[in-house]
């Protein structure tokens, strides 16, 4: 198959050819970037929190009236005892945030030296006690759990100054890349503290994208935050008991003490929190996916339309070629190669557009750099699409009988 005659023929349809090239280029630009966004969102929203999500739920409890720290702490202890004594509950603890919450968590700067002037390593605080690891369903990689006598009680405006902490593997590695974090002393704003345990994965409460770099850098502080505004109870149900507990657990707390508010939307399973926290991410992924499909259909439609037009315009030329001995296969091949050349032109241009668009998105939407394989995938998709779209018209062209050469002369 010679390419030269195809190029000569295309030169006679300069505008129509460049329209298809432009269209393929724009399609590649948008489809590759959109697919990349879908991919990053998908990776983001399918990350595990490291916890036993299927059996965890959260009760958001607000206190009524003006209470002091000691009163709040006493009530929290009574509540936890009530929750832990329920038959369907495996374990429970109190914190101020929970994974996938999507709200604001407490950030803490961790320094390796007491007088360190450079930026501390930021981490996300969970208040915890000796029941926290079992409740969350996370396991210690090294070290030990908190002891009951290490759990302090903090007022809302008190300094966070625990004697010991448990940190995640991620944070341990960032603080001590040589893997020697266990037993080391680090410095929080409130003073020095010793790392007594390292847990595997525990995601912070932020589901959004702005804290992605420290999402798994959590630090467990052995304290109950006795905030007069309220507390969050994390409860792990025994298998099969979760649905019943969603009603029974808040009811048991209210029976304990009625001067509290547990709003209907204050009892949330982690599965619900996951759906809610990532709603936007999933929405964007769906929208981009739909846009890609529509776009590819539109482009395919355009190729079918223009190729059909060319075939109808060239019926006589096709007839002549057939009369001079070209087989059906030759004609079919001609249109297929022609389409391949046009789409290739579009892909070259579209790759440039695509990279440029990605650079813009990186600037405005904190998106990472698009790897080249995404462009490659897009290109492959368009080549395939072009061949599929041109097949119908090309077959009709191949069906033109040689007798056509003698018509209209």
């Amino acid at each position, binding site marked *: 198959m010679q390419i030269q005659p195809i190029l000569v023929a295309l030169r006679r349809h300069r505008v129509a050819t460049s*329209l298809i090239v*432009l269209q393929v280029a724009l399609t590649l630009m948008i489809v590759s970037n959109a697919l990349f966004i879908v991919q990053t969102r998908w990776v983001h929203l399918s990350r595990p929190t490291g916890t036993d999500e299927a059996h965890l739920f959260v009760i958001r409890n607000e206190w*009524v*009236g003006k209470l002091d720290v000691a009163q709040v702490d006493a009530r929290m202890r009574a509540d936890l005892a009530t929750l832990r004594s329920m038959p369907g509950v495996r374990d429970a603890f109190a914190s101020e945030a929970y994974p996938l919450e999507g709200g604001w968590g407490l950030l803490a700067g961790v320094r390796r030296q007491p007088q360190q002037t450079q930026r501390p390593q930021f981490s996300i605080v969970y208040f915890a006690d000796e029941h926290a690891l079992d409740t969350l369903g996370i396991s210690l990689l090294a070290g030990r759990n908190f002891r009951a006598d290490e759990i302090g009680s903090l007022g809302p405006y008190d300094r966070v100054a625990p004697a010991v902490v448990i940190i995640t593997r991620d944070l341990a590695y960032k603080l001590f890349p040589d893997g020697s974090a266990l037993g080391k002393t680090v410095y929080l704003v409130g003073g020095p503290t010793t790392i007594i345990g390292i847990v595997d994965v525990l995601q912070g409460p932020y589901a959004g994208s702005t804290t992605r770099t420290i999402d798994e850098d959590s630090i467990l502080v052995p304290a109950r935050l006795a905030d007069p505004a309220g507390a969050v109870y994390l409860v792990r149900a025994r298998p099969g008991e979760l649905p019943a507990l969603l009603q029974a657990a808040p009811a048991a707390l209210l029976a304990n003490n*009625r001067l509290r508010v547990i*709003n209907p939307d204050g009892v949330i399973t982690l599965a619900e929190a996951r759906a809610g926290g990532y709603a936007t991410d999933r929405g*964007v992924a769906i*929208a981009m996916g739909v846009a890609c499909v529509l776009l590819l259909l*539109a482009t395919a439609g355009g190729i079918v339309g223009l190729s*059909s037009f060319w075939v109808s315009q060239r019926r006589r030329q096709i007839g002549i070629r057939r009369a001079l001995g070209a087989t059906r296969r030759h004609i079919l091949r001609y249109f297929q190669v022609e389409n391949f050349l046009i789409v290739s032109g579009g892909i070259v241009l579209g790759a440039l557009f695509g990279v440029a668009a990605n650079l813009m998105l990186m600037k405005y939407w904190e998106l990472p750099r698009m790897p080249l394989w995404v462009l490659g995938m897009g290109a492959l998709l368009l080549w395939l699409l072009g061949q599929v779209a041109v097949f119908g018209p090309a077959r009709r062209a191949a069906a033109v009988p040689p007798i056509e050469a003698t018509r209209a002369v």
Partner: protein
Amino acid sequence: MMAYYLGLALRSSRRSRALTALVIVLMGCGVATCMVSYAVFRATAADPIPWKSNQLFVAQVDNFGPTKTYQGEPPDLLSYTDATALLAASKAVRQALVYPVSLSIVPGDSQRQPFSLPGDAVTSDFFAMFDVPFRYGSHWSAADDAHRAAVVVISDALNRQLFGGADSVGRVINLDAHDYRIAGVLDDWNPRPRFFDLASSAGGAFGAPGQIYIPFGHAIDLQKSSSGASYCSSTDDSSSHGPGWSAFLRGECVWISAWVELPTAADTRRYRQYLGNYAAEQQRVGRFAWAPNVRLRSVMQWLDVEHVVPKASKLSMIVSMGFLLICLVNVMGLLLAGFMRRALEVGVRRALGASRGAIHRQFLVEAAALGLAGGVLGLLLTLLGLSGIRLVFEAKIAGLVRLDPALVLLTVLVAVITTLIAALYPVWRAAQVQPAWQLKSSG
């Protein structure tokens, strides 16, 4: 003549059905995606108080310092120290301090569970400043502010829930174990976006409206902390202040929005000057170790800084415009093919005396008709898209989006105009046909 052109268009569309249908479907899809994303964008980018949004400003004072601010921007909320200083200076026509609070109601009937109500702690100017409508009574007085009185303004919805919608002014309700006298009941008031406590509200710009408003000073006395954002110059709350509420108030934590009403440009200039002087004074007395860094932003500037329009909305705007562009390039190619196929017809018409202008008009009318049909299809698809919008955007944003006459008109107009633009080149090419050559070659 118009009717004749339309007749020709109809006949040609019958001859090449697939091509016509493809053009209409492409235009319909392209316009519909644009309109759906525009409808969301329009809803989220709306001006919540159009009649005076350029007279209302948020004051910002940098009390964190250059090493702790992000890109030199002062925090978007104020510390208690700065907020109360601006209020006491009284340099604006009206000024209001706002922070979100949550208060609980314990029903007398012990069978019913206590529930909490979202609201704001505000100073008395808040209501006049934002033209908040009242159904019964009015806002509390400046004297109530000064006496830190236990008064409350409740929403229409809460009034219906508690008092069956009757005039409840003067009655007493118990919130968080304190008695409050009801000073006023609001009419239906729900500005979208909810701009006045934007930086601190937990529900975000499109969250549920507040139910209760209590005096700022009274909330401070109750040691009511913000139910929304509150952050401190150090990442650990505790290092910015000592233990306890009064140390928290004195510390460098920010959690209050300060609004000022400045009717004229001269007022604005003067206030900006005052803010700068205030920060300079703080530097002089040694509280700030940095040059004054203040901002005074109008409502719309504030909405922009706070990124009220979701990023997903802007992104979908860009993608849908790209989609429309691709559809247009596509339509241009198809129209070119369609018009050139009718070179013979053009040749005959030209030979029989039709001018180039007449050919232009004929094909433009045809393109406009296609655009109109695409617009109508686009309208149907827009309706379909708007009903599916909940899949993409959060319910509270999706709930704001609706189809109104302006959007209908815009959909059709965009379809017709963009189709005409795409048709310009094909029409020009069609009119270039040489009558004699065309007639001869087609014998």
